[in-house]
């Protein structure tokens, strides 16, 4: 299932320094990489920018050559109805199976749907996919993000 549903997410290490976010996004914009989803995690001194983009290989290579530290990781995406309880449904499924969520972020997918992105410990990745599917919630295929 991993091969079918794993979405490549890029994590970029950033110092908390003026203009640094601008520089990353500029590199991506100039390379015509489209950001489909993003989240920014931060500590007092540094941050990690997490991106799901339309072309992860290209994005990774241009960011690396621009001197950024980039890590590629598998995440998965779940489509839920854009209404109260949507997020709860997924989290409950995972929690009931003792699957810890490292972090999650979301965006409104248009119409009445929302897309949730989940990062779980790698050893639980397969189990998480099965859990979500067996719970009757649609997993989003990577092509949704990558497709032109």
């Amino acid at each position, binding site marked *: 299932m991993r091969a079918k549903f794993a979405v490549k997410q890029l994590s970029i*290490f950033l*110092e908390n320094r003026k203009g640094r976010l601008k520089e990353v996004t500029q590199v991506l914009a100039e390379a015509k990489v489209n950001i489909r989803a993003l989240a920014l*995690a931060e*500590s007092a*001194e540094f941050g*990690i920018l997490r991106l799901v983009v339309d072309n992860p290989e290209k994005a990774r290579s241009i960011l*690396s050559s621009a001197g950024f*530290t980039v890590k*590629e990781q598998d995440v998965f995406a779940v489509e839920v109805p854009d209404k109260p309880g949507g997020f709860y449904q997924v989290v409950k499924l995972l929690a009931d199976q003792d699957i810890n969520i490292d972090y999650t972020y979301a965006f409104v997918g248009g119409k009445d749907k929302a897309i949730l992105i989940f990062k779980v410990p790698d050893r639980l990745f397969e189990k998480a996919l099965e859990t979500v599917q067996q719970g009757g919630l649609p997993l989003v295929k990577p092509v949704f993000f990558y497709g032109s």
Partner: protein
Amino acid sequence: MDWRKKDYLAREDIEALQLKRLKEVVERVYHLVPFYRQKFDELGVKPHDIKSLDDLRRLPFTVKQDLRDHYPFGMFAVPMEQIVRIHSSSGTTGKPTVVGYTAHDMRVWTEVMCRTFSMAKVGPGDVVHNAYGYGLFTGGLGFHYGAEGVGAAVVPSSVGFTKRQLMLMRDFGATVLCSTPSYALHLAEVASEEGLNPREDFRLRAGFFGAEPASKGLRENVSKVWGIRYCECYGLSEIIGPGVAASCEHDELHIFEDHFLPEVIDPETGEPLPEGEEGELVFTTLTKQGLPLIRYRTRDIATLYKAPCKCGRTILRMGRVIGRSDDMLIVSGVNVFPSQVEHVLTQVEGLTPNYVIVLDKRGVLDVLEVWVEVDERVFTGDIGALENLKRKLEEELANALFLRARVKLVEPKTLERSMGKAKRVVDRRELESITK
């Protein structure tokens, strides 16, 4: 001989005494320390070859690594039952350097510290506030014994708790302060913050400062802000601790050369340099029993002067230490080698990330930061993992350096590089004018 007279001997008497003692120490190490016997034999030199002070140049050097290689007691020249005190450095990448003193050595140490205190005529009636660290570091106990030796009252306050230190200094009427120069300045700053005037609300008249390099500006500041005589103290634990040299009323740094025979050498070739030339300071301990050292290379760069001083002392003078011939850093009086930091970085994550050591001042105190590049080997994409890494590095650095170091995680290629080679140390402290 009364120690008070030893600083005023005629030059030829000093040299005659040195030669006599040099012959003795060479004889002793040759027979009692296998390391030296082997070194002497390799160079084809025997103790009886030493007929003049000039023959010193025929003897082998000793370096810090030799002490580490013989950790802990391999270079001691007496059986352990004669050792009454052991001190130790914090230890660098591997083993610390351990020094041992016999009862006789303790008397020598106390004597040179008495001679140090006599530079400002410290004696009965004085209250000596000793804010050097007590413990394995030689500073605390070295000054302590000297102050007792001259009959002053010692307050062994050790380091830290600045406000309490100030209260004690004030309430006990301290007349003499012993500390690192930067801590003396910090004390003055905190006193001012507390609404006290260092010059008027305290009875200090002199201070004995050492354990870290001090620029002329820093020395003048300390002297001015407290309104005191600034006595500089030079020493290193391998030779005895503090008490190798001290500055007189004319601000000249005198070496107690009847105990510690100094030379200046070219650090590249090892050749002795004539008086007045700048080079690496080398000491031979003339009277120490526990750990006698022959031609110990201090790595400190300085100059020697033989002409008698205006103060009347005949023992020779050394210029201020103007740098190091190796990469040792002195941070708040603590010796730090970049290799120690590298060792910790390598151990913690099993890899050697790029890093740079940044030294700075926060107020008057030294701050040590280690900037570590987060490259793709270190970066897991997880923020918690980075925070753990930072915390773990800080803990391990504190354990290894005996000093708090702040770790800053930075992006690759932000670290300064020079000549295509990573620059490991950026010292932002103002030390440009260490020389007089």
